[in-house]
């Protein structure tokens, strides 16, 4: 007899970041269908889902319903850090477990949260180690006006300072604002070696399109010379931007659709079978999917959905996933993940051009970050790859 377990899915599938929520939720639901449809499964999930619609007040109410009335001990959800922080007190009060699967800005390690998205040492650090070594250290920073952009740009600033580089500008737009002309004009004037784009959603798409128009006027701004980089752009958004504007730019992520492994090929088949051939695979889709599978395996091993035994079971094993092998670090509740660097291609996918090679333990408070060591890594990479910055040979 499989064990019946109630879980909550708390994703905004409508509103500003609805596309991301939809991907994470679809991944989670796909996994639930597989588990519930498998006669050998030790767990049968009953899913209670709520759509807060990106409305921050609704998160607390929705989580309360799941925890109090639906008897959920596990909630998979929230996209933004504001949403996550909004429901953590309720999660802690009910001694439940929140599964947060998005890349994020770090500086939190709650004992009632399992973090399976990339922390800064798994996204911005490897991205900047690669970029500073190959393109130069005169950098322009953009972002949407909230904590993700502020904090990732602050870390970027510290990394650039460590290598003796210079921040040529740092500009923010309110969420959904598409008035990017001032940024583009400033970039045209200052000619940074590369750009870090922490704009999200429509602002980000408008920025990349406008940057493409700049590159058409002045080929010096083409992606191969002065690329736009980010830590949160994924396959599910590329169609919005279009191949012309997106191609050639770079993104750091712990998963790309093109990842060549038997488990990822199998995941692609499952997504195609369920959602059709046109569905791009994104880090959100796979993260929602794998979180549910990890939860099911941990509940099966623990013989209960109580969070103490589930956490012990989580910490004790390595999960073979479409993203690669994942372990959850007992100290921080964070997943060890393999960072990759992808370059957007003309088919609206990412070609993987660099990889950490193996899983990196999350360091949410950057405890082990050492500016001098980072600068040495960058200098060594620069010497190794090209005998200097690519700019020199351009």
């Amino acid at each position, binding site marked *: 007899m499989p064990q019946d377990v109630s879980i909550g899915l708390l994703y905004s599938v409508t509103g500003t970041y609805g596309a991301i929520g939809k991907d994470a939720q679809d991944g989670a639901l796909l996994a639930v269908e597989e588990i519930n449809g498998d006669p050998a499964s030790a767990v049968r999930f009953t899913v209670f889902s709520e759509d807060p619609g990106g409305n921050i007040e609704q998160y607390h109410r929705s989580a309360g319903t799941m925890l109090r009335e639906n008897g959920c001990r596990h909630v998979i959800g929230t996209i933004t850090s504001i949403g996550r922080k909004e429901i953590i007190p309720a999660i802690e009060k009910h001694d439940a477990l929140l599964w947060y699967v998005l890349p994020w800005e770090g500086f939190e390690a*709650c004992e009632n949260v399992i973090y399976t998205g990339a922390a800064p040492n798994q996204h911005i650090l490897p991205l900047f180690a690669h970029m500073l070594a190959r393109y130069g250290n005169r950098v322009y920073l953009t972002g949407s006006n909230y904590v993700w952009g502020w904090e990732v740009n602050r870390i970027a600033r510290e990394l650039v300072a460590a290598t003796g580089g210079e921040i040529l500008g740092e500009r923010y737009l309110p969420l959904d604002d598409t008035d990017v002309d001032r940024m583009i004009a400033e970039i045209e004037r200052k000619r940074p070696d590369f750009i870090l784009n922490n704009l999200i959603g429509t602002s980000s798409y408008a920025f990349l399109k406008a940057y493409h128009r700049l590159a058409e006027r002045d080929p010096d701004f083409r992606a191969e010379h002065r690329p736009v980089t980010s830590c949160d752009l994924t396959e599910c958004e590329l169609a919005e931007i279009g191949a012309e504007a997106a191609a050639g730019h770079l993104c750091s992520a712990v998963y790309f659709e093109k990842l060549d492994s038997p488990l990822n090929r199998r995941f692609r088949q499952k997504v195609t079978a369920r959602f059709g051939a046109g569905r791009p695979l994104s880090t959100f889709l796979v993260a929602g999917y794998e979180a549910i599978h990890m939860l099911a395996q941990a509940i099966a091993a623990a013989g209960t959905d109580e969070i103490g035994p589930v956490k012990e079971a989580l910490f004790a094993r390595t999960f073979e996933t479409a993203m690669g092998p994942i372990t959850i670090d007992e100290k921080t509740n964070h997943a060890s993940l393999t960072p990759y660097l992808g370059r957007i291609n003309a088919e609206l996918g990412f070609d993987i051009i660099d990889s950490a090679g193996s899983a990196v333990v999350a360091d949410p408070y*950057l405890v082990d970050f050492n500016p001098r060591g980072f600068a040495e890594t960058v200098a060594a990479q620069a010497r190794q790859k090209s005998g200097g910055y690519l700019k020199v040979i351009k």
Partner: protein
Amino acid sequence: MTGFRTPNFRDRHAIILHKPGDTIDRLVRQLERLGMKTDVHWPDFPADGSYADVIFFDADNAFDELFPWAPGAAPMPLVALLGSELPGRLEWAMRQGVSSHVVKPVQSSGVFSALVIAFANFEAARETQRLIDALTARLDGRPAVIRAVVALMAACGIDDTAAYARIRSAAMARRVTVEDFCATLDPGAIDRLFADQVNPRKQTR
């Protein structure tokens, strides 16, 4: 945006003065996540406790003589662990010169910011104290400066501004403060040190 560096507490040592229990276990785990080393003691401050970089203490049960130093003279930041908000307890904690606090029961959130604020406040207070000490020392030296200025005015027949300027450049040449320089001047020193500048007419008189 400023050049605010990511605060890092790796290998820092915290002493926690509190009865062991769940809330302290959570505090210890959170400090370990930040790369810190911890020791829990209650009710005695460890004899060799001066190695601590920061002290968390039970503000609900802390008592006079808990710390081996006078109230307000802690040589490291103090973080109060507050359960009770009774004015008497807050007063006791503040008298110790707390640099920040964490509300009990301790959660995963709040510890990092308490540490960042405690170290920053402690450093700012220490910097302010250094400034006050320096200014107090200068104030104490004022009478000697005034005596020297008056003596040089008389000896050289110059005004106070010119006299002070000469004393100041003489102090700078010796790499000491004006106050320290003036404190070393005995009655004959003016004539000796400023021999080339002393007004001969005044000298013969």
